[in-house]
Protein backbone atom coordinates (compact mmCIF):
# COMPACT_ATOMS: atom_id res chain seq x y z
CA UNK A 1 0.00 0.00 0.00
CA UNK A 2 2.89 2.32 0.83
CA UNK A 3 4.39 1.67 -2.62
CA UNK A 4 1.09 2.36 -4.41
CA UNK A 5 0.48 5.50 -2.43
CA UNK A 6 4.03 6.68 -3.08
CA UNK A 7 3.40 6.15 -6.79
CA UNK A 8 0.19 8.18 -6.51
CA UNK A 9 2.00 10.93 -4.64
CA UNK A 10 4.72 11.03 -7.27
CA UNK A 11 2.11 11.26 -10.04
CA UNK A 12 0.60 14.18 -8.13
CA UNK A 13 4.01 15.89 -8.04
CA UNK A 14 4.45 15.38 -11.76
CA UNK A 15 0.99 16.76 -12.48
CA UNK A 16 1.97 20.11 -10.98
CA UNK A 17 3.50 22.55 -13.48
CA UNK A 18 5.77 23.95 -10.77
CA UNK A 19 7.60 20.61 -10.58
CA UNK A 20 8.80 21.14 -14.14
CA UNK A 21 9.30 24.83 -13.50
CA UNK A 22 12.01 23.87 -11.00
CA UNK A 23 13.76 21.56 -13.46
CA UNK A 24 13.39 24.17 -16.21
CA UNK A 25 14.79 26.93 -14.00
CA UNK A 26 17.71 24.71 -13.01
CA UNK A 27 18.45 23.89 -16.67
CA UNK A 28 18.33 27.55 -17.62
CA UNK A 29 20.58 28.59 -14.74
CA UNK A 30 23.18 25.94 -15.50
CA UNK A 31 23.20 26.69 -19.23
CA UNK A 32 23.54 30.37 -18.38
CA UNK A 33 26.58 29.67 -16.19
CA UNK A 34 28.12 27.45 -18.89
CA UNK A 35 27.55 30.18 -21.49
CA UNK A 36 29.08 32.83 -19.20
CA UNK A 37 32.11 30.64 -18.52
CA UNK A 38 32.54 29.89 -22.21
CA UNK A 39 32.35 33.60 -23.05
CA UNK A 40 34.48 35.03 -20.26
CA UNK A 41 35.67 32.17 -18.06
CA UNK A 42 39.37 32.96 -18.38
CA UNK A 43 38.99 36.42 -16.88
CA UNK A 44 36.92 34.96 -14.03
CA UNK A 45 39.68 32.44 -13.29
CA UNK A 46 42.26 35.21 -13.57
CA UNK A 47 40.26 37.25 -11.06
CA UNK A 48 40.50 34.34 -8.63
CA UNK A 49 44.21 33.60 -9.14
CA UNK A 50 45.27 37.26 -9.54
CA UNK A 51 46.95 37.51 -6.15
CA UNK A 52 49.27 34.64 -7.15
CA UNK A 53 49.84 35.47 -10.77
CA UNK A 54 52.33 38.19 -9.95
CA UNK A 55 54.71 35.51 -8.76
CA UNK A 56 53.52 32.26 -10.31
CA UNK A 57 52.29 31.08 -13.66
CA UNK A 58 49.55 28.49 -13.85
CA UNK A 59 50.04 26.25 -16.89
CA UNK A 60 47.63 23.68 -18.26
CA UNK A 61 43.96 23.34 -19.05
CA UNK A 62 42.52 25.23 -16.08
CA UNK A 63 39.11 26.15 -17.47
CA UNK A 64 37.78 22.61 -17.86
CA UNK A 65 34.50 20.80 -17.35
CA UNK A 66 35.31 19.76 -13.80
CA UNK A 67 35.95 23.33 -12.71
CA UNK A 68 32.69 24.46 -14.33
CA UNK A 69 30.83 21.61 -12.59
CA UNK A 70 32.35 22.63 -9.26
CA UNK A 71 31.40 26.28 -9.77
CA UNK A 72 27.85 25.29 -10.79
CA UNK A 73 27.46 23.06 -7.74
CA UNK A 74 28.83 25.77 -5.47
CA UNK A 75 26.62 28.49 -6.93
CA UNK A 76 23.39 26.53 -7.16
CA UNK A 77 23.43 24.45 -4.01
CA UNK A 78 22.29 27.63 -2.25
CA UNK A 79 19.35 28.10 -4.63
CA UNK A 80 18.22 24.53 -5.30
CA UNK A 81 16.57 24.26 -1.83
CA UNK A 82 14.04 26.84 -3.05
CA UNK A 83 13.17 24.61 -6.00
CA UNK A 84 12.82 21.62 -3.69
CA UNK A 85 10.71 23.48 -1.15
CA UNK A 86 8.51 24.84 -3.95
CA UNK A 87 7.33 21.30 -4.69
CA UNK A 88 7.59 19.50 -1.37
CA UNK A 89 6.32 22.40 0.76
CA UNK A 90 2.69 21.85 -0.11
CA UNK A 91 2.57 18.08 -0.29
CA UNK A 92 0.34 17.96 2.83
CA UNK A 93 -0.88 21.53 3.21
CA UNK A 94 -1.71 21.76 -0.49
CA UNK A 95 -4.16 18.89 -0.06
CA UNK A 96 -5.63 20.65 2.95
CA UNK A 97 -6.02 23.84 0.93
CA UNK A 98 -7.65 21.99 -1.97
CA UNK A 99 -9.86 19.93 0.32
CA UNK A 100 -8.58 16.57 -0.91
CA UNK A 101 -6.88 15.62 2.34
CA UNK A 102 -10.12 14.36 3.88
CA UNK A 103 -10.59 11.95 0.97
CA UNK A 104 -6.94 10.90 1.23
CA UNK A 105 -7.41 10.12 4.93
CA UNK A 106 -10.39 7.86 4.21
CA UNK A 107 -8.24 5.49 2.13
CA UNK A 108 -7.28 2.20 3.77
CA UNK A 109 -3.81 3.38 4.68
CA UNK A 110 -2.53 4.70 7.96
CA UNK A 111 -1.75 8.37 8.37
CA UNK A 112 1.85 7.43 9.11
CA UNK A 113 2.11 5.74 5.74
CA UNK A 114 0.49 8.74 4.03
CA UNK A 115 3.23 10.99 5.42
CA UNK A 116 5.92 8.43 4.59
CA UNK A 117 4.67 8.08 1.01
CA UNK A 118 4.75 11.85 0.61
CA UNK A 119 8.25 11.95 2.05
CA UNK A 120 9.43 9.18 -0.34
CA UNK A 121 7.78 10.89 -3.33
CA UNK A 122 9.48 14.15 -2.34
CA UNK A 123 12.78 12.28 -2.01
CA UNK A 124 12.39 10.81 -5.52
CA UNK A 125 11.66 14.27 -6.95
CA UNK A 126 14.73 15.68 -5.15
CA UNK A 127 16.81 12.81 -6.52
CA UNK A 128 15.66 13.55 -10.07
CA UNK A 129 16.52 17.21 -9.53
CA UNK A 130 20.04 16.46 -8.29
CA UNK A 131 20.67 13.83 -10.99
CA UNK A 132 19.62 16.33 -13.66
CA UNK A 133 21.85 18.93 -12.05
CA UNK A 134 24.73 16.43 -12.01
CA UNK A 135 24.18 15.52 -15.64
CA UNK A 136 24.19 19.15 -16.77
CA UNK A 137 27.04 20.21 -14.48
CA UNK A 138 29.44 17.30 -14.97
CA UNK A 139 28.55 15.63 -18.28
CA UNK A 140 27.52 18.64 -20.38
CA UNK A 141 30.34 20.81 -18.97
CA UNK A 142 32.87 18.08 -19.77
CA UNK A 143 31.46 17.80 -23.28
CA UNK A 144 31.85 21.55 -23.84
CA UNK A 145 35.04 22.31 -21.89
CA UNK A 146 36.84 18.96 -21.81
CA UNK A 147 38.55 17.50 -18.76
CA UNK A 148 41.64 18.39 -16.74
CA UNK A 149 42.90 18.97 -13.23
CA UNK A 150 40.58 20.81 -10.90
CA UNK A 151 41.45 24.00 -9.05
CA UNK A 152 39.25 24.18 -5.99
CA UNK A 153 38.68 27.69 -4.80
CA UNK A 154 38.57 27.93 -1.03
CA UNK A 155 38.51 31.10 1.02
CA UNK A 156 41.96 30.24 2.42
CA UNK A 157 43.72 29.02 -0.69
CA UNK A 158 43.75 26.71 -3.64
CA UNK A 159 43.71 22.93 -3.79
CA UNK A 160 44.63 21.39 -7.11
CA UNK A 161 43.26 17.89 -7.69
CA UNK A 162 44.47 15.59 -10.42
CA UNK A 163 42.09 14.61 -13.20
CA UNK A 164 42.01 10.90 -12.35
CA UNK A 165 41.14 11.73 -8.75
CA UNK A 166 38.06 13.87 -9.39
CA UNK A 167 35.05 11.87 -10.63
CA UNK A 168 34.60 9.86 -7.42
CA UNK A 169 34.66 13.14 -5.49
CA UNK A 170 31.79 14.46 -7.61
CA UNK A 171 29.88 11.19 -7.08
CA UNK A 172 30.34 11.32 -3.31
CA UNK A 173 29.79 15.09 -3.24
CA UNK A 174 26.46 14.78 -5.06
CA UNK A 175 25.36 12.07 -2.59
CA UNK A 176 26.01 14.35 0.38
CA UNK A 177 24.42 17.28 -1.47
CA UNK A 178 21.38 15.04 -2.04
CA UNK A 179 21.18 14.26 1.66
CA UNK A 180 21.28 18.01 2.37
CA UNK A 181 18.46 18.66 -0.11
CA UNK A 182 16.53 15.75 1.36
CA UNK A 183 16.70 17.57 4.70
CA UNK A 184 15.15 20.62 3.05
CA UNK A 185 12.46 18.35 1.61
CA UNK A 186 11.80 16.82 5.06
CA UNK A 187 11.71 20.26 6.66
CA UNK A 188 9.16 21.57 4.19
CA UNK A 189 6.98 18.42 4.48
CA UNK A 190 7.16 18.75 8.26
CA UNK A 191 6.10 22.40 8.11
CA UNK A 192 3.45 21.40 5.61
CA UNK A 193 1.89 19.11 8.23
CA UNK A 194 1.40 22.12 10.48
CA UNK A 195 -0.12 24.41 7.83
CA UNK A 196 -3.41 24.64 6.01
CA UNK A 197 -2.23 26.65 3.00
CA UNK A 198 0.29 25.97 0.22
CA UNK A 199 2.51 29.01 0.36
CA UNK A 200 3.17 29.15 4.13
CA UNK A 201 5.46 26.08 4.43
CA UNK A 202 7.41 27.07 1.28
CA UNK A 203 8.10 30.58 2.60
CA UNK A 204 8.78 29.28 6.11
CA UNK A 205 11.30 26.72 4.77
CA UNK A 206 13.17 29.41 2.84
CA UNK A 207 13.06 31.78 5.83
CA UNK A 208 14.60 29.08 8.06
CA UNK A 209 17.32 28.33 5.48
CA UNK A 210 18.15 32.03 5.06
CA UNK A 211 18.21 32.61 8.82
CA UNK A 212 20.43 29.59 9.53
CA UNK A 213 22.73 30.43 6.61
CA UNK A 214 23.18 33.99 7.89
CA UNK A 215 23.98 32.68 11.36
CA UNK A 216 26.44 30.25 9.77
CA UNK A 217 28.26 32.88 7.73
CA UNK A 218 28.49 35.48 10.50
CA UNK A 219 31.99 35.51 11.94
CA UNK A 220 30.70 35.98 15.48
CA UNK A 221 32.07 33.63 18.10
CA UNK A 222 28.83 33.62 20.11
CA UNK A 223 27.25 31.49 17.35
CA UNK A 224 30.10 28.96 17.36
CA UNK A 225 28.27 26.70 19.80
CA UNK A 226 25.12 26.39 17.68
CA UNK A 227 26.69 26.42 14.19
CA UNK A 228 27.64 22.71 14.22
CA UNK A 229 24.00 21.74 14.86
CA UNK A 230 22.39 23.82 12.13
CA UNK A 231 21.61 21.69 9.08
CA UNK A 232 22.60 24.59 6.80
CA UNK A 233 26.16 24.33 8.13
CA UNK A 234 26.29 20.82 6.70
CA UNK A 235 24.59 21.61 3.41
CA UNK A 236 27.96 22.51 1.91
CA UNK A 237 29.72 19.43 3.32
CA UNK A 238 29.98 18.04 -0.21
CA UNK A 239 32.88 20.53 -0.59
CA UNK A 240 34.91 18.53 1.90
CA UNK A 241 35.31 15.83 -0.75
CA UNK A 242 37.32 18.36 -2.76
CA UNK A 243 39.94 18.85 -0.10
CA UNK A 244 43.19 16.97 0.01
CA UNK A 245 43.30 14.86 2.13
CA UNK A 246 39.57 14.28 2.49
CA UNK A 247 38.45 14.86 6.07
CA UNK A 248 36.15 11.83 6.38
CA UNK A 249 35.52 12.54 10.07
CA UNK A 250 33.95 15.91 9.28
CA UNK A 251 31.93 14.44 6.42
CA UNK A 252 30.59 11.58 8.52
CA UNK A 253 29.68 14.05 11.25
CA UNK A 254 27.74 16.11 8.69
CA UNK A 255 26.04 13.00 7.30
CA UNK A 256 25.04 11.97 10.82
CA UNK A 257 23.62 15.39 11.65
CA UNK A 258 21.68 15.53 8.36
CA UNK A 259 20.31 12.00 8.86
CA UNK A 260 19.25 12.86 12.43
CA UNK A 261 17.53 16.01 11.10
CA UNK A 262 15.68 13.94 8.50
CA UNK A 263 14.53 11.35 11.05
CA UNK A 264 13.40 14.01 13.54
CA UNK A 265 11.58 16.08 10.92
CA UNK A 266 9.74 13.08 9.43
CA UNK A 267 8.90 11.83 12.92
CA UNK A 268 7.56 15.25 13.84
CA UNK A 269 5.49 15.38 10.66
CA UNK A 270 4.05 11.90 11.38
CA UNK A 271 3.30 12.86 14.98
CA UNK A 272 1.53 16.05 13.93
CA UNK A 273 -0.38 14.48 11.03
CA UNK A 274 -1.62 11.63 13.24
CA UNK A 275 -3.07 14.16 15.67
CA UNK A 276 -4.33 16.55 13.02
CA UNK A 277 -8.01 17.35 13.13
CA UNK A 278 -8.89 17.25 9.45
CA UNK A 279 -11.73 19.67 8.95
CA UNK A 280 -11.10 20.94 5.44
Amino acid at each position, binding site marked *: MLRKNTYNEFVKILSKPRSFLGIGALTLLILLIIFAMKADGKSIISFVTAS*FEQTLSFNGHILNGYLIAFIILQMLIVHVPLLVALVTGDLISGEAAMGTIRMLATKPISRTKIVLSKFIAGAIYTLILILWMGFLAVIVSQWIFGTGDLIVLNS*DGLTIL*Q*EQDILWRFGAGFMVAYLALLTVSSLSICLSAFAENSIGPIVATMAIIILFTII*GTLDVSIFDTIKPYLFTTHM*ASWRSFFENPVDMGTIMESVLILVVHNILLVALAIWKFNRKDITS
Partner: protein
Amino acid sequence: MKTLLSILLLLPLVGLAQSSAKLNKVITKLNTVKDYSVDVEVKADIPMIKILPSKAKVYFKQKDKFKVVSKGIVILPKQGFSEINTFLSDKSKYMAIEGDTSKIAGVVVQLITVIPSGEDNEIILAKLWVDDSRSLIIKTQITTKSNGTVTTNYTYGDMAKFALPSKMVFEIDVKKFKLPKSVAADINQRSTEKKDDKRTKGSITVNLSNYKVNTGLSDELFKKKS
Protein backbone atom coordinates in the same frame (compact mmCIF):
# COMPACT_ATOMS: atom_id res chain seq x y z
CA MET B 1 102.57 60.04 -8.46
CA LYS B 2 100.81 60.30 -11.82
CA THR B 3 101.40 56.59 -12.44
CA LEU B 4 99.94 55.67 -9.04
CA LEU B 5 96.87 57.87 -9.70
CA SER B 6 96.39 56.24 -13.11
CA ILE B 7 96.58 52.76 -11.57
CA LEU B 8 94.02 53.69 -8.87
CA LEU B 9 91.62 55.11 -11.46
CA LEU B 10 91.92 52.11 -13.76
CA LEU B 11 91.68 49.46 -11.03
CA PRO B 12 87.86 49.24 -10.92
CA LEU B 13 87.72 48.90 -14.72
CA VAL B 14 90.18 46.01 -14.59
CA GLY B 15 87.93 44.27 -12.01
CA LEU B 16 84.89 44.90 -14.19
CA ALA B 17 86.63 43.48 -17.22
CA GLN B 18 87.55 40.32 -15.25
CA SER B 19 84.03 39.70 -14.00
CA SER B 20 82.66 40.26 -17.48
CA ALA B 21 85.11 37.73 -18.80
CA LYS B 22 83.86 35.13 -16.31
CA LEU B 23 80.30 35.92 -17.16
CA ASN B 24 81.15 35.89 -20.86
CA LYS B 25 82.36 32.31 -20.52
CA VAL B 26 79.01 31.37 -18.98
CA ILE B 27 77.08 33.25 -21.67
CA THR B 28 79.12 31.61 -24.42
CA LYS B 29 78.21 28.22 -22.97
CA LEU B 30 74.55 29.17 -22.65
CA ASN B 31 74.52 30.40 -26.25
CA THR B 32 75.59 27.01 -27.58
CA VAL B 33 71.99 25.97 -26.91
CA LYS B 34 69.79 27.28 -29.68
CA ASP B 35 66.74 25.33 -28.56
CA TYR B 36 65.81 22.48 -26.31
CA SER B 37 62.92 20.42 -25.06
CA VAL B 38 62.88 18.75 -21.67
CA ASP B 39 60.57 16.71 -19.46
CA VAL B 40 59.98 18.34 -16.12
CA GLU B 41 58.54 17.16 -12.84
CA VAL B 42 57.38 20.00 -10.64
CA LYS B 43 56.97 19.81 -6.88
CA ALA B 44 55.49 22.97 -5.43
CA ASP B 45 55.45 23.79 -1.73
CA ILE B 46 53.70 27.11 -1.67
CA PRO B 47 51.69 28.58 1.20
CA MET B 48 47.93 28.32 0.57
CA ILE B 49 48.35 26.04 -2.43
CA LYS B 50 47.97 22.27 -2.20
CA ILE B 51 49.18 20.50 -5.31
CA LEU B 52 50.65 17.08 -5.97
CA PRO B 53 53.80 16.73 -8.11
CA SER B 54 52.95 17.30 -11.77
CA LYS B 55 54.68 16.60 -15.07
CA ALA B 56 55.07 18.74 -18.16
CA LYS B 57 57.22 19.25 -21.23
CA VAL B 58 59.10 22.51 -21.61
CA TYR B 59 60.24 23.95 -24.94
CA PHE B 60 62.74 26.78 -25.30
CA LYS B 61 64.16 28.51 -28.32
CA GLN B 62 66.58 31.39 -28.54
CA LYS B 63 66.12 34.17 -27.88
CA ASP B 64 63.05 34.22 -25.69
CA LYS B 65 60.56 31.62 -26.89
CA PHE B 66 59.31 29.49 -24.02
CA LYS B 67 56.40 27.08 -23.79
CA VAL B 68 55.06 24.66 -21.20
CA VAL B 69 52.86 21.78 -22.37
CA SER B 70 51.06 19.73 -19.76
CA LYS B 71 47.92 17.67 -19.45
CA GLY B 72 47.37 18.72 -15.87
CA ILE B 73 47.96 21.97 -14.03
CA VAL B 74 51.61 22.89 -13.47
CA ILE B 75 52.73 25.80 -11.32
CA LEU B 76 56.01 27.47 -12.25
CA PRO B 77 57.59 30.69 -11.10
CA LYS B 78 56.69 33.62 -13.32
CA GLN B 79 60.33 34.61 -13.56
CA GLY B 80 63.54 32.62 -13.42
CA PHE B 81 63.16 29.77 -15.86
CA SER B 82 64.63 31.27 -19.00
CA GLU B 83 64.48 35.03 -18.43
CA ILE B 84 67.96 35.30 -16.97
CA ASN B 85 69.49 33.63 -20.05
CA THR B 86 67.62 36.03 -22.31
CA PHE B 87 68.65 38.99 -20.17
CA LEU B 88 72.32 38.01 -20.04
CA SER B 89 72.55 37.44 -23.79
CA ASP B 90 72.30 41.19 -24.50
CA LYS B 91 75.53 42.48 -22.97
CA SER B 92 74.77 46.12 -23.77
CA LYS B 93 71.87 46.13 -21.29
CA TYR B 94 73.72 45.54 -18.05
CA MET B 95 76.91 45.99 -16.11
CA ALA B 96 78.55 43.13 -14.22
CA ILE B 97 80.53 43.60 -11.03
CA GLU B 98 82.65 40.90 -9.49
CA GLY B 99 82.09 40.23 -5.79
CA ASP B 100 83.35 37.79 -3.18
CA THR B 101 84.09 34.15 -3.66
CA SER B 102 82.38 31.62 -1.43
CA LYS B 103 81.43 27.95 -1.35
CA ILE B 104 78.05 26.47 -2.21
CA ALA B 105 77.74 22.72 -1.61
CA GLY B 106 81.52 22.44 -1.60
CA VAL B 107 81.94 24.26 -4.91
CA VAL B 108 83.93 27.51 -5.03
CA VAL B 109 81.73 30.15 -6.58
CA GLN B 110 82.25 33.73 -7.67
CA LEU B 111 79.52 36.26 -6.95
CA ILE B 112 78.75 38.44 -9.93
CA THR B 113 76.28 41.26 -9.45
CA VAL B 114 74.47 42.28 -12.61
CA ILE B 115 72.90 45.72 -12.73
CA PRO B 116 70.71 46.70 -15.68
CA SER B 117 71.80 49.90 -17.39
CA GLY B 118 68.37 50.89 -18.71
CA GLU B 119 65.41 52.28 -16.76
CA ASP B 120 62.74 50.16 -18.37
CA ASN B 121 64.19 46.78 -17.53
CA GLU B 122 61.97 44.39 -15.56
CA ILE B 123 65.01 43.07 -13.67
CA ILE B 124 66.23 45.49 -11.00
CA LEU B 125 69.18 43.46 -9.77
CA ALA B 126 70.58 40.01 -10.42
CA LYS B 127 73.15 38.22 -8.30
CA LEU B 128 74.82 35.22 -9.91
CA TRP B 129 77.00 32.71 -8.14
CA VAL B 130 79.18 31.23 -10.85
CA ASP B 131 81.37 28.12 -10.79
CA ASP B 132 84.20 29.58 -12.87
CA SER B 133 85.99 26.27 -13.35
CA ARG B 134 82.98 24.75 -15.17
CA SER B 135 81.40 28.04 -16.36
CA LEU B 136 78.10 27.21 -14.72
CA ILE B 137 75.59 29.30 -12.78
CA ILE B 138 75.11 27.59 -9.40
CA LYS B 139 72.73 30.05 -7.82
CA THR B 140 70.84 33.18 -8.83
CA GLN B 141 68.95 35.80 -6.89
CA ILE B 142 66.87 37.95 -9.17
CA THR B 143 64.88 40.96 -8.01
CA THR B 144 62.27 42.21 -10.44
CA LYS B 145 59.90 45.16 -10.43
CA SER B 146 56.69 43.16 -10.28
CA ASN B 147 57.59 39.72 -8.92
CA GLY B 148 59.79 40.41 -5.92
CA THR B 149 62.89 38.33 -5.33
CA VAL B 150 63.31 34.79 -6.65
CA THR B 151 66.28 32.71 -5.53
CA THR B 152 67.17 29.71 -7.67
CA ASN B 153 69.63 26.91 -6.92
CA TYR B 154 70.88 24.85 -9.84
CA THR B 155 72.15 21.28 -9.89
CA TYR B 156 73.82 19.89 -13.00
CA GLY B 157 74.01 16.42 -14.48
CA ASP B 158 74.77 15.10 -17.96
CA MET B 159 73.87 18.32 -19.70
CA ALA B 160 76.36 20.48 -17.79
CA LYS B 161 78.31 20.84 -21.04
CA PHE B 162 75.37 22.93 -22.31
CA ALA B 163 74.89 24.67 -18.93
CA LEU B 164 71.47 23.02 -18.69
CA PRO B 165 70.52 21.99 -15.15
CA SER B 166 69.05 18.68 -14.03
CA LYS B 167 67.37 20.29 -11.03
CA MET B 168 66.25 23.79 -10.17
CA VAL B 169 64.94 24.87 -6.78
CA PHE B 170 63.12 28.19 -6.75
CA GLU B 171 62.51 30.07 -3.53
CA ILE B 172 59.81 32.65 -4.02
CA ASP B 173 58.09 35.40 -2.07
CA VAL B 174 54.37 34.83 -1.78
CA LYS B 175 52.22 37.66 -0.58
CA LYS B 176 49.33 36.83 1.72
CA PHE B 177 46.78 35.12 -0.41
CA LYS B 178 43.09 35.78 0.10
CA LEU B 179 40.29 34.90 -2.27
CA PRO B 180 37.19 37.03 -2.51
CA LYS B 181 34.57 35.35 -0.29
CA SER B 182 31.90 35.77 -2.97
CA VAL B 183 33.93 33.54 -5.28
CA ALA B 184 34.92 30.93 -2.74
CA ALA B 185 31.86 30.82 -0.53
CA ASP B 186 33.01 28.45 2.19
CA ILE B 187 29.61 28.41 3.82
CA ASN B 188 30.27 25.28 5.84
CA GLN B 189 32.82 27.10 7.94
CA ARG B 190 31.94 25.87 11.40
CA SER B 191 33.66 28.43 13.57
CA THR B 192 35.33 31.81 13.47
CA GLU B 193 38.69 30.12 14.03
CA LYS B 194 41.02 30.78 11.07
CA LYS B 195 43.55 28.29 9.70
CA ASP B 196 45.75 30.68 7.72
CA ASP B 197 49.17 29.59 6.54
CA LYS B 198 51.49 32.30 7.84
CA ARG B 199 54.45 31.46 5.58
CA THR B 200 55.45 34.11 3.08
CA LYS B 201 58.09 31.99 1.31
CA GLY B 202 57.45 29.07 -0.95
CA SER B 203 59.58 26.74 -2.98
CA ILE B 204 59.21 25.03 -6.33
CA THR B 205 61.50 22.12 -7.19
CA VAL B 206 61.83 21.30 -10.87
CA ASN B 207 63.53 18.07 -11.91
CA LEU B 208 64.54 18.14 -15.56
CA SER B 209 65.25 15.05 -17.63
CA ASN B 210 65.34 13.78 -21.20
CA TYR B 211 66.84 16.92 -22.72
CA LYS B 212 66.76 17.20 -26.49
CA VAL B 213 69.13 19.99 -27.45
CA ASN B 214 69.46 21.84 -30.76
CA THR B 215 66.92 19.76 -32.63
CA GLY B 216 65.71 22.78 -34.60
CA LEU B 217 62.34 23.45 -32.95
CA SER B 218 60.06 25.37 -35.28
CA ASP B 219 58.57 28.74 -34.37
CA GLU B 220 55.12 27.32 -35.10
CA LEU B 221 55.40 25.13 -32.01
CA PHE B 222 55.44 28.22 -29.81
CA LYS B 223 52.42 29.73 -31.53
CA LYS B 224 50.17 26.69 -31.05
CA LYS B 225 47.87 26.72 -28.03
CA SER B 226 48.93 24.11 -25.50
